[in-house]
């Protein structure tokens, strides 16, 4: 087992007071992110300056993380600093707003990095509304220099939150299956990385096939399917210690695991004599409970964020379709009635939508529908798209896509819940089965 060093360093957040008295006459900038923003907001982010307003390597790096996060969201378009008219930006000075309006800037971020006596760094930044000529936010963060990427994500989250009114998701991670080797001898390891694809590292050895990893609500543990000893069983892996254990003592194959929202239970499929039914295992009492009882394939269960309902797929009506039931297994309702087959349902952390894989006419699509089955929308379509997972704020989905061909392999993608802003997510090699961490705040 590969041991992982998680970041333990502390970040101190201080709210900076506005330098200038604020007039409240005008409405401040706000992005409506429900519409699938076609026009991203132009934002200028200056490379954070160092001591005595000199250029700073770490300051530039931090600003680049902020830029990249905001650009990837599709809601912002950062302006190239070469086009800046006002050059000597100071975090504690009021910018010349006219200079920024000329280059069509709407939001301006000015930051600074200072070295502290104890070896830590202090980052200060302000977010300005160029049109209203007002400060929207001022923050100071203190941490160790090695945390520069994390700091960048925190700054980006703060800006995103201030401008959209939604929770940010840049300070989060993605666990996925790293794939190497030819298709008939694929080695599959669990790997974990920052949500922007940086800092990828493998967390299982590849000795046994590892599939479908899912985060615990604390992001400290992962439940997944392992073929250890060539027996497919649900495992629990502690990311920090590397320790793992089989979940429960079931008499058959267990697979398709997920945590309950309170982290107390694992929900999964248990296969006996060719039939797969849904069970939960209480991690404290070790008591298991059967929730479905059919001769069909009932699998891919996922709790609603309030833990009161469960969505799953079943072929009890002939083909894979989505069903919702209460947490005790009662009151099962079919929710998908469209053409084709529906699989891998995942409930949004906001509770408002369920994402799924749909197979139609030999194509694999990713879509969303409301928990009552209405309002189905397809977000992406192609030869093979599978296994959507939600960003912690329920605004972005990650999934894997595979191209046709012997040498082809899967890669990770992201798409906005509106269907806009589809982008590849870079991984060192082939990658599949992504799951997004909750926010670690």
């Amino acid at each position, binding site marked *: 087992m590969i041991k992982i060093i998680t970041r333990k360093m502390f970040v101190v957040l201080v709210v900076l007071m506005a330098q200038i008295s604020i007039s409240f006459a005008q409405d401040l900038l706000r992005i409506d992110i429900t519409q699938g923003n076609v026009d991203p907001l132009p934002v200028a982010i200056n490379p954070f300056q160092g001591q005595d307003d000199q250029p700073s390597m770490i300051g530039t790096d931090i600003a680049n993380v902020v830029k990249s996060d905001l650009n990837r969201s599709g809601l912002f378009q950062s302006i190239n600093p070469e086009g800046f008219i006002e050059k000597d930006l100071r975090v504690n000075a009021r910018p010349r707003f006219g200079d920024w309006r000329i280059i069509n800037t709407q939001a301006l971020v000015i930051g600074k990095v200072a070295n502290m006596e104890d070896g830590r760094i202090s980052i200060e930044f302000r977010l300005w509304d160029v049109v209203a000529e007002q400060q929207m936010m001022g923050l100071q963060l203190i941490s160790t220099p090695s945390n520069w990427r994390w700091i960048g994500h925190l700054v980006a989250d703060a800006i995103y939150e201030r401008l959209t009114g939604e929770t940010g998701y840049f300070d989060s991670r993605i666990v996925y299956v790293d794939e190497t*080797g*030819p*298709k*008939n*001898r*694929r080695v*599959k390891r669990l790997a974990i990385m920052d949500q922007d694809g940086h800092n990828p590292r493998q967390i299982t050895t590849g*000795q*046994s*096939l590892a*599939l*479908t990893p899912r985060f615990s609500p604390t992001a400290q543990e992962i439940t997944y*399917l392992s073929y250890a000893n*060539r*027996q*497919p069983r649900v495992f629990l892996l502690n990311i920090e210690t590397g320790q793992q254990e089989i979940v429960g003592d079931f008499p058959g*194959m267990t*697979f*398709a695991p997920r945590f309950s929202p309170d982290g107390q239970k694992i929900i999964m*499929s248990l*296969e006996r*004599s*060719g*039939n*797969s039914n849904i069970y939960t295992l209480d991690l404290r009492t070790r008591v298991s409970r059967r929730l479905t009882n059919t001769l069909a*394939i009932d*699998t*891919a269960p996922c709790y609603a964020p309030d833990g009161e309902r469960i969505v799953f*797929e079943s*072929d009890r009506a002939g*083909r*894979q379709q989505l069903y919702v039931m209460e947490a005790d297994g009662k009151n099962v309702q079919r929710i998908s009635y469209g053409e084709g087959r529906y*699989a*891998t349902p995942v409930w949004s952390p906001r509770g408002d939508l369920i994402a799924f*894989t749909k*197979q139609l006419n*030999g194509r694999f699509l990713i879509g969303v529908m409301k928990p009552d089955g209405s309002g189905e929308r397809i977000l992406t379509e192609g030869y*093979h798209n*599978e*296994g959507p997972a939600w960003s912690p704020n329920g605004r972005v989905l990650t999934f894997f896509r*595979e191209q*046709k*061909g*012997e040498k*082809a392999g899967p890669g990770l993608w992201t798409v906005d819940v509106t269907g806009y802003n589809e982008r590849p997510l870079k991984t060192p090699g082939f990658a*599949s*089965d992504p799951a997004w961490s909750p926010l670690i705040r």
Partner: protein
Amino acid sequence: MRKLFRSSNIVVALGASVLLTACAASGTVSGSYGGSSDESAVKELVRNVGDRVFFSTDSAGLSSEARSTIMRQADWLKTNSKSLTIEGHADERGTREYNIALGARRANSVKDYMISLGIDGSRLETVSWGKERPVSLCAEDACWSKNRRSVSVIQ
């Protein structure tokens, strides 16, 4: 069945058990898990009896060809005291979790038929590999149909 073994992508299955064991040890090739100790028995099962059964899309139903293969496996099991692990596999045109369940359904379909032919269920184990271990790699049904299979392996 015999025709299939001439195709190049089944070369490993044709090889002596030395090869099979070597591959099983590195955990790389499907249809060879289970680490057999008896070279001639493996050869007999793979070459003469037929170790695999094919299924149509999204089905665990047994065709007449599948049933005759399983009958030969059952007859062969009556001549020895071996136990089998029946691996169930699916093609790549399905979702991961469902295909794991489908592979289990296929393996059990073979197991149930063998039991109905008088084989003691305690000699038969099943395991599903879902879509994780294809043997044919092209993106056409010609290959997918070879991947929708069960493979009986001596324990």
